[in-house]
């Protein structure tokens, strides 16, 4: 109930259901903010993919004769305290932050959907126990759970991803399970069962396709939540480790030079904030557009 009120709160523009092909175009025309957000995200993703090609320097290339220089020709966004090129670090930071987030969300989708579908399908005592595990993980504030994992097992990239998945999958599981439980009792599923369809077919043809829109909307919003947690972990020092660049880490490294070199803060902070804003704007527009009930109104 919460997620639906959250969604309806911000978006007045509700795309109607247009015919297939043109729907993407119509979606963006009705919601220019979502279109701008999507465009920005595409650019950032391209930069992340092409980071080694578009950046003038390696992210860890130090030039100790040219430290803390403001933006100028040669270093368009300036250099940091070790003389590393800020532009290159922001671009490689995109690569690291985004790939960690995408892998974590991918894993979240798999684990959350499997766990939720299984619990909802089996029901009874198994369902109850499976959901107790979910309740337990949700009881932790998410940043704390992530800090517990990377703080104790060490901040390797794998552990960071595990920590991020641990914070995200229980929420996804709740969404999927409650939908599966509701769908299981619907007439078309009953009809399929009466017609002799196997459980596998019911899950594959009737249940999963009908929870997909929830999974898509939820996971888009989770990308932004996960990017925020990764940035916070890196900022605190239990996330991505130097000399690897992550936006959160770069912002942490910019703090001592806040007064004299504010550009060190400005670029990673702006890129990171805009990514999260864009993901939230796009995610909410997507949730509206994909919700079959909302569409009919």
């Amino acid at each position, binding site marked *: 109930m919460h997620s639906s*009120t959250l969604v309806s709160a911000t978006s007045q523009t509700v795309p109607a259901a247009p015919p297939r092909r043109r729907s993407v175009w119509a979606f963006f025309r009705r919601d220019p903010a979502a279109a701008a957000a999507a465009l920005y995200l595409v650019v950032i993703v391209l930069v992340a993919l092409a980071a080694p090609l578009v950046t003038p320097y390696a992210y860890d290339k130090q030039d100790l004769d040219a430290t803390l220089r403001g933006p100028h020709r040669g270093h368009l966004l300036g250099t940091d305290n070790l003389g590393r090129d800020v532009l290159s670090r922001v671009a490689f930071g995109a690569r690291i932050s985004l790939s960690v987030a995408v892998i974590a969300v991918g894993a979240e989708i798999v684990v959350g959907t499997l766990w939720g579908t299984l619990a909802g399908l089996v029901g009874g005592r198994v369902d109850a126990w499976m959901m107790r595990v979910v309740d337990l993980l949700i009881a932790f504030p998410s940043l704390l759970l992530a800090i517990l994992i990377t703080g104790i097992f060490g901040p390797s990239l794998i552990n960071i991803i595990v920590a991020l998945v641990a914070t995200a999958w229980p929420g996804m599981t709740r969404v999927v399970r409650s939908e599966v439980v509701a769908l299981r009792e619907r007439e078309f599923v009953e009809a399929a069962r009466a017609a002799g369809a196997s459980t596998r077919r019911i899950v594959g043809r009737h249940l999963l396709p009908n929870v997909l829109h929830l999974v898509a909307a939820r996971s888009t919003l989770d990308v932004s939540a996960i990017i925020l947690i990764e940035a916070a972990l890196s900022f605190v020092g239990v996330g991505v480790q130097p000399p690897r660049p992550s936006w959160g880490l770069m912002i942490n490294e910019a703090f001592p030079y806040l007064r004299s070199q504010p550009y060190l803060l400005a670029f990673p902070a702006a890129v990171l904030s805009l990514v999260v804003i864009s993901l939230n704007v796009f995610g909410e527009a997507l949730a509206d557009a994909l919700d079959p009930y909302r569409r009919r109104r």
Partner: protein
Amino acid sequence: MARYALYRIGLTLPLLIGAALLIFVAGRMAPGDPVAIRLGDHYDEAAARAIRRELGLDQPIWLQFVRYVAGAARGDFGESFISPGRRISGIVRQTLPLSLRLTALAVACAAVVGLTLGVVGSAAARSRLDRVLQVLVVVALSVPNFVVAALLVLVFALWIRALPVAGLSTWQSHVLPVVVLAVAPTAYITRISRTSMLQVMAEDYIRTARSKGLPRPRVVFRHVLKNAALPIVTTIGLAFGYTLTGSFIVEIVFNIPGMARVGVEGILQRDYTVIQAVVLIYTSLFILVNLIVDLSYAFFNPRIRY
């Protein structure tokens, strides 16, 4: 009411014990042997056995867990892993009140400001003001709190020099940390209260109240707000969780000697017992606040009975 309260408390206990179990197991799986760290270069088998007995590490694992939970329930979290002899309970007593004070101030500010903005937004729904508020809400929920902190420090402490950069000695030094902590929860409360108010405004009994001639402010405050209160109360509880985790960032940025900073220092020094204690205390607080919220929910809404 009493039956529901008992039922709800009964749900909370296993959650607390489960959280403690998870934290306990994570600590036991951590790399490094506390006994080896204590002995350092003087390591030999006999001494190690003696310390193991002293720490209770020779007992079966389930008994160790029971003792851990029993200790934690009394506020005893053992000793620091890195500097043996330093009781964690002492550290907690020194630092927790400070963190709680900041958190409480931030949640209070967020509740007052968020509720006000939510009521204003819903009363002026779809107006320009409302749209601006909506955009601000998305921005406030998206911009990481350490970026907010950096911007505010830059403007108010370094450029205008109106507020101190760090510490927590005067009331002025409370302003920036509380504001940074409150930004995201305020936005969240604004959003939920606006939505909740709008939902109630669409109800028939509100139209009835208006059409029988009651003035608009009276309807908004007496009828709408009262019926829209439940989701808002829940959100204020959730805001507490936001603020608790936010304090990890804020206490570092503003150099505040609170418990979250102890936790972060524990992480950087790999002091597992300190990490465990901090996570356990904050998670328990979060669970308890949610319990209180749920109980108040039932108190406000007589329809909720199990």
